[in-house]
């Protein structure tokens, strides 16, 4: 009797327990209900945009932000179903050109979160940052400081550390709106620009996570790629935008990215440079194939002295005139010497430049902290002190290179 009664009560009990567990969780979200954010650009707000601030996160009378700090944020949202994978056949459907696969929406706000909340107020789907791949920040915003932007992105659990952050010369918004010919989705084009730059040795790997790590280190400052959009919707890598704390303080020139990578010993090497030799007189273009670098530090009279040893292997790619032939070791030796001189000069110039800005993007301070902890603990200790000391340290760059190959031409 009892067992039958137990049986009848058991089944509903099982159902009662199983159904809530199987019916899915609170976080179920259908694909078409979410607005997948692919890229974000951040600019300073232009005067005529100031009025658009929605005042959604606050009542305007009890929060006072200076109006000039307003930022204008453009968000690139993927349009579901419009993004095709692989080559598509429908370009002949009459419209021509690329089908609009993303939707770019612009909002204004005092902080990044404020702007995104304003945006959410205007968009039906829930904004989803799991696929956020590129964040473009305009130079003006970067020079003002990026503390708020970094804080929001770091706190958000959806944002990946493998996204790229770029600093744009001019309006960052342009990059979000661009219509590159090679990719359907503008942000994917930006990504492939950066990824292939890394693969070809034109830029060191520098995801947003690495940028943050460098920024937090006491003996190092952060840098980001500095880009500019060109006429044909193509994007040029213009140099390294270097920071001091969270503020951008300058940008290097293009070839100096190669110099930076030589100093850090980053492989593969991808930059070409002219080498002007004196005997016989002429100019050749060389490219490095591999680099090695090592740093050592000595303390003399309480001032750290760094020595960087760089070794590069180079090949000759082009010769300007027929006045001399590249057929003996002596000429190659000449090229090698000249390349050594040029590279070490360029390196010292770049280091001087960053020293003036107090921005140690090479991480000499980290090296000092790691290898001479006694000195660091006594004399430096904080990031601010290192920024001051970096201006006064001496760095010697010793370059060694070998010319190995001259291509398919015999002379």
């Amino acid at each position: 009797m009892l067992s039958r009664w137990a049986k009848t009560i058991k089944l509903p009990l099982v159902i009662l327990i199983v159904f809530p567990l199987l019916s899915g969780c609170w976080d179920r979200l259908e694909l078409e209900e979410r607005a997948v954010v692919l890229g974000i650009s951040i600019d300073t707000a232009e005067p005529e945009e100031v009025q658009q601030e929605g005042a959604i996160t606050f009542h305007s009378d009890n929060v006072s932000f200076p109006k000039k700090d307003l930022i204008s944020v453009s968000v690139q949202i993927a349009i579901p179903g419009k993004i095709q994978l692989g080559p598509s056949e429908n370009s002949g459907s009459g419209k021509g050109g690329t089908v609009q696969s993303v939707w770019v929406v612009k909002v204004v706000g005092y902080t990044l979160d404020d702007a995104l909340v304003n945006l959410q107020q205007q968009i039906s789907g829930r904004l989803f940052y799991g696929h956020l791949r590129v964040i473009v920040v305009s130079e003006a915003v970067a020079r003002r400081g990026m503390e708020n932007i970094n804080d929001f992105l770091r706190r958000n659990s959806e944002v990946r550390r493998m996204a790229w952050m770029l600093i744009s010369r001019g309006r960052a918004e342009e990059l979000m709106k661009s219509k590159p010919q090679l990719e359907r989705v503008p942000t994917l084009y930006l990504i492939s620009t950066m990824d292939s730059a890394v693969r070809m040795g034109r830029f060191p790997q520098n995801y947003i996570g690495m940028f943050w790590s460098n920024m937090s280190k006491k003996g190092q400052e952060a840098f980001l790629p500095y880009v500019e959009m060109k006429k044909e919707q193509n994007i040029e890598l213009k140099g390294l935008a270097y920071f001091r704390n969270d503020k951008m303080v300058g940008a290097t020139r293009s070839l100096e990215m190669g110099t930076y990578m030589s100093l850090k010993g980053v492989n593969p090497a991808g930059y070409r440079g002219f080498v002007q030799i004196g005997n016989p007189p002429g100019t050749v273009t060389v490219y490095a194939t591999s680099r090695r670098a090592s740093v050592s530090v000595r303390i003399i009279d309480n001032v750290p002295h760094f020595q960087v040893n760089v070794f590069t292997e180079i090949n000759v790619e082009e010769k300007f005139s027929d006045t001399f032939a590249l057929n003996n070791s002596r000429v190659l030796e000449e090229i090698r010497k000249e390349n050594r001189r040029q590279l070490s000069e360029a390196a010292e110039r770049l280091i001087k430049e960053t020293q003036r800005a107090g921005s140690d993007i090479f991480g000499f301070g980290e090296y000092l902290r790691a290898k001479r902890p006694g000195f660091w603990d006594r004399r430096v200790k904080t990031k601010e002190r290192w920024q001051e000391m970096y201006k006064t340290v001496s760095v010697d760059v010793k370059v060694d290179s070998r010319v190995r190959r001259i291509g398919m031409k015999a002379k």
Partner: protein
Amino acid sequence: MEQPPRQITAIQAAATLTSTNIGVGVLALPLFTVQAANSGAPLVTLLGFLLAFVGFVPLVLLGMRFPSQSFVQYSEAIIGKWPSWIGSACVIAFFAVLTAFTSREFGEVVITAVLTRTPVEVTVIVMLLLAAISTRKDITTFAYIHHFYFPLLLVPVLLIGALSLKNADVINLLPIWGNQPTFMLEGILTTAALFEGSFVIAVVIPAMKRPDYALKANFWGMLVGGALYVMIVVATVSVFGAEETSNLLWPTLELAKATSLPANVLERLDAAFLAVWVTTVFTTLLSSYFLTVTELQKLFRQREHKMFSLFMLPFVFFIAMLPQNISQMYATIKIVGRIGLIVTIVYPTLLLVIAIIRNKRGEHADAQQMGKND
């Protein structure tokens, strides 16, 4: 009172220890140790591990001295009924609290990182229910569960450790003793506290086939756990650097986020890592819950521990819900961890000393078996 069947092998005992020790703590471990000694974090982890490693030897020796009795029973034989009752009650209460906070920490991670709209109560109660139901089985099943999940816990940690080497920088790990470490001792104690689950060996020994292998099992079980801990800290700090690690609430999770499988198989490993991590949390919860329940059974001299499984659930859940926010939770966990070191290391050591002085000794396992056969 019937004796449990002696079926647990030394390998199972070691696997139980390792999978108990690797738990919810691995996510925040690099943060705690970096706060203690910046780039000296791996050293702090190692020292904390060594402290726990040595600290749990007396407990194992006690277990081998009384190979067929549980902790509650032999402490009664050593110091008498009432003092031991208080001591055992403390141990049980501590493990109930530990279970509660483990589940709460799990819940917090899940709702912060993955299921942001799920109430924390739900994630906690689901995990506790799972553990409670599993503790209704006997000790042999308990050891099997640990043994079964053991490889699952080893692989992802090793994988993430190996894959993150690509982004690692040795400079971040130097100097190995840290730049003017200020809270070294605190960090060591916090790390040692993460090994408190090793107390479960006290429950395992009476069910081991050969209790004289207990020391060996303890050695290997803790060594593997400790090695994984050190590896996680080394990997995290060498990739992020000490300063960045101190900016992250769960650095290990961030490491999984920043690590990708080669050839674009998985761009971020955090989802895979979290899935496995749930299992490791489950095994940890299972151990501390099982410990609470079985010792409670011995304390109240009941025949079965099953009824305590569900009986304890509301209490544990209530304790889990006490911290008001995540900062309070971690502050409480640290305090509870310190108290736990007294309960799980100092108290057994005292017991061992008294047992040696009073020359108390339990029946030898073989002798007892023979006695049964007669």
